Structures are given as structure tokens and as C-alpha cells.
């Protein structure tokens, strides 16, 4: 896990060497002269070997010093203050929505498999899976924001001002991220349950006089949820990545927007920090999914 993170941070660091432009480009803008640029590069230490700079960044990072943003002149910690909370709240909310929508729906669809409701949902599911979150975002701002006036597009309030206002504003962005994911989880859970329903133990359970509902609840669900849990854990990583786009559409001041702006500004310290955070979430969720799977089914051993 640590090796993965190290590799990712190194790759991110090196990637900036390949693309044109560096922090000096942005800082000098139209006042650029080669002499000024060279002087500034020297002052910022950018003229040194890339591996030396990476090592410096790394040793700083592990001791909790994330460096100073080139673009804002504040420490990275100060720049990210409050931004992380927005993205975290948005992601967790979207993730909970995915679970809250897809688990009951998946079970219900499997329970009433083949009925009209199921057929309608399966067809619609296909559509929802295909809609990109940014498009849903634009649709939501228009329908819920401008027509139904359930929220004020662009009227984001920080959690320090009004906690409920903050959560309220996040609901629609969270839904925009959650719906395509929820559609996938629903489909996965439904087919997982239906697969299990054909197993021998299900027939045995029926023969012992259990009702369809109790078979589903007490026997099938435990097995059917296995692959779903892994998938749901992994979606959190996807959701964090998805929030980058949705933050733009809803004008949310989160990590995603900061990341995009910082890449544009070639603000390496900020980019490094966000990349490592996102990488950590992905790796960690993967790990967590393994542990949960193992707890449910002790036969699976962690590799």
C-alpha cells in the first residue's frame, strides 16, 4: 500500500516535467523575460534536479510539512483548509445515497423479478448508468434550481455559516454523482441475488417451508452482497474522482476545483498533496473492501 502511494506521488511529480510550462510561466505571465524567469526559478529552487526536489518534498510530506503553494503564497495546509471538508462531505453523501438507493432497490427488483416494475426499472437503469454526472448536474441546476427553486445554483454556503444550508446545497451535486453509480450497484445486486436464487441451498431453504422473503433475507442476501460490497467500496474512490467534475458544474469550492486550478497554475505542492490524498482514498478503500469481504466470508484470505 505504501509502495503504491510512493509510486503514484513520484509519477505525479515527474508528469509535471513532461508538460510545457512551469510555475514561473504562470507567475510572470506577460512580464516574462528569460532573465527574470531564470532568476525566479533559481529563487524557487526549480533549477535543481527533479529527483532532489522530489526527495525534499517527500521528506517534508512524511514529517507533516506539505510545503508552500506557489500560487497562493500560503502553506498547502492553509490553501486546502475547508476544501477537503466540502469534497469529503460531498463524496460521503453521494456514497450514502448510492447505498440508500441501490440496496433496497436491488433487493426489491430481485424480489419482484419479471414483473412490470422490474422491467421498467431495468430499462431505466441502463439509461441512468450511461448518464455522465456533469450532465445530470446541469440538468439538476436547471430543473431543481431554476424551475422548482429547491436550491440556489451558485449559492453555496460554507459549513461554518450554516451547517444545514451546507448539507442542503450538497444534496443535488451528491445525487448527480450518486445516480449513475447507484444504477450500477442496483444492477449488480439484482443479478447477484438472482444468481444465488438458482443455487441448491435456496431450494433446500424453500423445502424447509421458508417464505420467499425469508429465504432472500436470511440466506441469499449474505452471499449476494459479497461482490456488491467490494464494488460499493470501490465506488467511493470513483465518487471522489467524479466530484472533481461536479464541483465545477455546481460552483463548489472543493478539492476538485482546487486540483484543476492548481494543475493549470503548475502549483506542484498543492497538486502533489491532493493527488496523494485521492490515491490514498482509492488504495485504502480497496484494502477496506478486502477486510469487509473477509469478515463476511472467512474462507477468503487476504493476499
Amino acid at each position, binding site marked *: 500500500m505504501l509502495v503504491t502511494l510512493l509510486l503514484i506521488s513520484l509519477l505525479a511529480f515527474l508528469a509535471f516535467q513532461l508538460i*510545457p510550462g512551469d510555475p514561473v510561466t504562470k507567475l510572470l505571465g506577460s512580464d516574462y523575460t528569460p532573465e527574470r*524567469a531564470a532568476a525566479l526559478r533559481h529563487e524557487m529552487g526549480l533549477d535543481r534536479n527533479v529527483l532532489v526536489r522530489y526527495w525534499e518534498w517527500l521528506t517534508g510530506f512524511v514529517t507533516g510539512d506539505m510545503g508552500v503553494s506557489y*500560487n497562493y503564497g500560503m502553506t498547502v495546509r492553509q490553501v486546502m483548509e475547508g476544501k477537503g471538508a466540502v469534497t469529503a462531505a460531498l463524496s460521503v453523501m453521494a456514497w450514502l445515497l448510492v447505498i440508500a438507493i441501490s440496496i433496497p432497490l436491488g433487493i426489491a427488483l430481485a424480489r419482484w423479478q419479471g414483473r412490470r416494475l422490474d422491467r421498467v426499472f431495468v430499462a431505466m437503469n441502463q439509461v441512468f448508468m450511461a448518464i455522465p454526472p456533469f450532465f445530470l448536474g446541469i440538468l439538476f441546476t436547471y430543473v431543481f434550481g431554476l424551475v422548482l*427553486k429547491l436550491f440556489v445554483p451558485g*449559492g453555496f454556503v460554507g459549513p461554518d455559516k450554516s451547517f444545514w*444550508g*451546507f448539507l442542503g446545497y450538497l444534496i443535488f451535486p451528491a445525487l448527480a454523482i450518486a445516480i449513475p453509480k447507484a444504477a450500477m450497484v442496483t444492477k449488480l445486486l439484482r443479478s447477484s441475488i438472482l444468481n444465488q436464487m438458482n443455487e441448491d441451498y435456496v431450494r433446500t431453504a424453500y423445502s424447509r417451508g421458508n417464505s420467499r422473503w425469508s429465504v432472500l433475507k436470511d440466506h441469499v442476501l449474505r452471499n449476494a452482497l459479497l461482490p456488491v460490497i467490494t464494488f460499493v467500496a470501490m465506488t467511493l474512490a470513483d465518487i471522489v474522482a467524479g466530484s472533481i467534475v461536479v464541483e465545477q458544474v*455546481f*460552483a463548489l469550492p472543493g478539492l476538485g476545483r*482546487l486540483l484543476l486550478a492548481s494543475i493549470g497554475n503548475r502549483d506542484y505542492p498543492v497538486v502533489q498533496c491532493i493527488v496523494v490524498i485521492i490515491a490514498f482514498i482509492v488504495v485504502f478503500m480497496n484494502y477496506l473492501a478486502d477486510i469487509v469481504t473477509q469478515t463476511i466470508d472467512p474462507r477468503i484470505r487476504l493476499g
Partner: protein
Amino acid sequence: MKKRILTLALAVIMTAALLTGGGQSALAADGSAEEITVGIASDLDSSLDPHVSSSLAGTREVLFNIYEGLLKPDTQGNLIPAVAEEYTVNDTADQYTFTLREGVRFHDGREVTVGDVVYSLTRAAGLETGEPLVATLAGVSSVEATDDSTVVVSLSAPDAEFPAYMTAAIIPEGSDPADGIVGTGPFEYVSRSPQENVVIERFDDYWGEKAKCAKVTFRIIEDGQAMVMALHSGAIDLAAHLDASQAAELSELNVLEGSMNLVQALYLNNARPPFDDARVRQALSYAIDKHMVIDLACDGHGTALGSSMYPAFGRFFDEELTDYYAPDLAKAMELLEEAGYSQSDPLTFTIAVVEAYTPHMNTAQAVVELLRQTGMVEAEILPMENATWYSEAYQGRDFDATITGMDASTLTASALLARFVSDNAKNFIGFASEDYDAAYAAAVSSTDADEQTAQFKACERILTENAANVYIQDLADFVVTQTDIQGYQFYPLYVMDMANVCRVG
């Protein structure tokens, strides 16, 4: 059982958040009558140092509310006294004497003294470091206080345009804007949050007419569609620099049309083939009908230009140059043939454009279409990210052609024309003409206003005759406000003056 309780609890929380949250956020966005929220499309520069943040127009336009110089521009393009009450100039135009206004205070409450002025100008002109922070002050040789209210600025060479540079900000003696932002303007700085907002508040001890609203929040909304939505919903009260299509979507609000005050052109790399050949540059000028470009790319909004000067500069603007190259496809083809191109061996080149700037992208598309009509030109748009454009095209000068806008940081003709002097560091198109250098030198050293104007116009004419660039337009600038917002004024510079903006009713 546990699972069911959990699901139930979740559902309850979600519903509660939906109900209470929806209502409250609407309330918070309305704010008080004294507060105004402005949407801006990009975050400000790293430092809010008024002497170094000259690169980003978006930073300058916000700082305009916080800092003032000895003089400041007004909406008509005149220089009006600010921290100075008046000034005099000697006969040779190389020594300017400023008398300070009494009772001008910094935002920290202290009165402005000659020491502050000397410190600020010395810092901006880089007299101690040898490296001017404000490039236009490079000609300053000394700044001295002769008594408690008089400052004398001496120049190494005569410069009749110098007063326009005295808009450089006055800051407290010994201070560094990195440690705290203190100016003398109608608003004082409160806070900023990266990628989120910048907040300023009315300065109650301002020497002049006080700002009409108590607090202005500049909210950063980078996405153009999100900006339109935020205006629709009332989350922001005002946004400037919108394009024609965005403005058309917002017609139920107050839509004001001004101009961006910049020179949009197809800038050509005069230093290398194919555009080192004047015939090729002229051919493009004949082939590109700028009025049609404006119609196609900007729905007909915009002011056609024929040289590196826009109408807001008044006496420096030469209208005759606008249609110097009347659209003439036959002539364009003739010139291209002369230069050795034909239908089978067409002129091919790329146009570098920053992808995020929709008006420039639209213009580029129109230009490519018009050039295709000659049958001898194949231009290709090269969309770029901002930093890449800066590093490769602008700073690296590695481009064929680019569409961008050049604005003026001060109210002087040289702000637009200096860059085409052959050895100027900002001469990114590599334009080199001895006539131009001579005319420019004559203009800046002239002490007679009419003579100076004539020389600057000569510069503009040389640019046009040589077809240094294919000049297109000064883009229309749409400012959209909620219907209860009044008092927004356009300046001939890229600034956003919030002091007169207020909410009525």
C-alpha cells in the same frame, strides 16, 4: 434488524437535510441589502502585491478597489487626482512635482505622509534593487520629498505620458503587501479563500465619496455555464466579461454592453516563415473580413479594429485604419500567388488559442472558415491550456499565429504600442521595423501633446501597413446584474469599480 434501523435512520437524515437545507440556503444567498456578490471567472494572482501583480488583468480589476496611486483614471479616460491633490511638470517633461492631498488615510487608520509615497514609488520603480517591479516606472531616476506635502519625481528621459504611470499604488512605508494588504482605496481587504472568494469592505475613512455598498464578495466561478446559472438563481448579483451568447441567455436581467478594452487580433509570428513575408500577412488581412468575423463569432457585438489601438483611447485612435484592408478575396489570392502559394500547394499554418477563452476560440473558427474560401490557405486551430500557451507561444515565441487579446495596464498609448519596438522584451510577434522604432522613440520623448499623438498614430499606421497582425476587434464586454443593482460603470481600462454599485429598492 440493525440494518433496517440504519437504513431508516439514513432516510430520515436525508429527508431532514433536504427539507431544512433547501430553505436555508436560499435565505443565505439573498444576504443583506448592503452586500453585493460578484462572480469572477478566475481566482486572483498569488500575491495581491499591487506592484507585482501586473500580469493578470483579473487581479488588477479587483485591486483597483483597494489601492490607489497619486492619480487614478476615471470613466472617461482622464487622470484625476487621488492621493495627490495636484501636480506640475517642468518644461522639459522630466521632472514632476506632486502635492499630497491632506487627510488621506490608509485602511489601518494612519494618515498618508510623503514618506509613504517615497517608499512606494521607490519600491515600485526598483530604485534600490535596480529591478523595477512596475515596468512602466523604469524611467524614474529619483524620488524625493522636498517638504511635508511635496514629492518630486525625476526621470532619466522626458516622458509626457508619465502621469498615467502614477496610478501605481501607494502603500504604507516599510510595508510588504505579502504581510498585509493596506491601501487607500474606497474598499479595504478582508479575506480570501483560494478558489472560493475574495471579500472587501467599505472603508469608512475614505477621503473621497464613500463606497455605496458595505461589503463586496467576489466569488470565483470558473465554469461559464455555472456563472449563468448563478445569475439566473440570484446567487450572485453581478458578473462582468460575459460573451454575447451568455448575455442572450440572461435577457430578463440588466444587461449592460461595453467593451473589453483590448486588441483582439490574429497575432502573427513575424520572425519566421510563413509570416516573415509581408505579402502573406497582407493577404490574410485582405482575406479575413473582420466585420463578418464579428457577426459569426460574436453575434455582431464588438468594435472592429485596424491596428493596436482601441477607441476608448480617444485621440490616439485612428479610425481610418480600421478598414485599411477592405475585404478583397481576389487581391488576397494574388498576393499569395506572388508569395509562391497555389491551390495545389497551399499555405498551411496553426493558430494557437487558449481553449478556455470561448470568444477567442469562436473567432478562430470564423477565421479558419474565411481563410478556407481563398482555396489557398489551410489554417488549423491548436487549442491549448493557458499555461502551455504562455510557455510555448507567448514566452517561447514558438507559434505560427495566435488569437488573443492585448490590453493596456495604464491609460497610455505606449501600454499598447511599446511591445512592437524591435528590442522590447514583450515583442512576442518579433515585429522589427526601423521606422516603427524611430516613430515610437519620437513619441515617448515628445513633450508636445499634439506631436506625441501624431507620432503614436504614425506607429499605428506602420503596424497596419506592414500587416504586423490581422487586427479584428475590441470584444464586447457584457455585464449582467440583477435588476435591483445599479451604478456599474465601464472604464477605458480593464477594471471593475465597485464603489458606485448599490442595491436599490
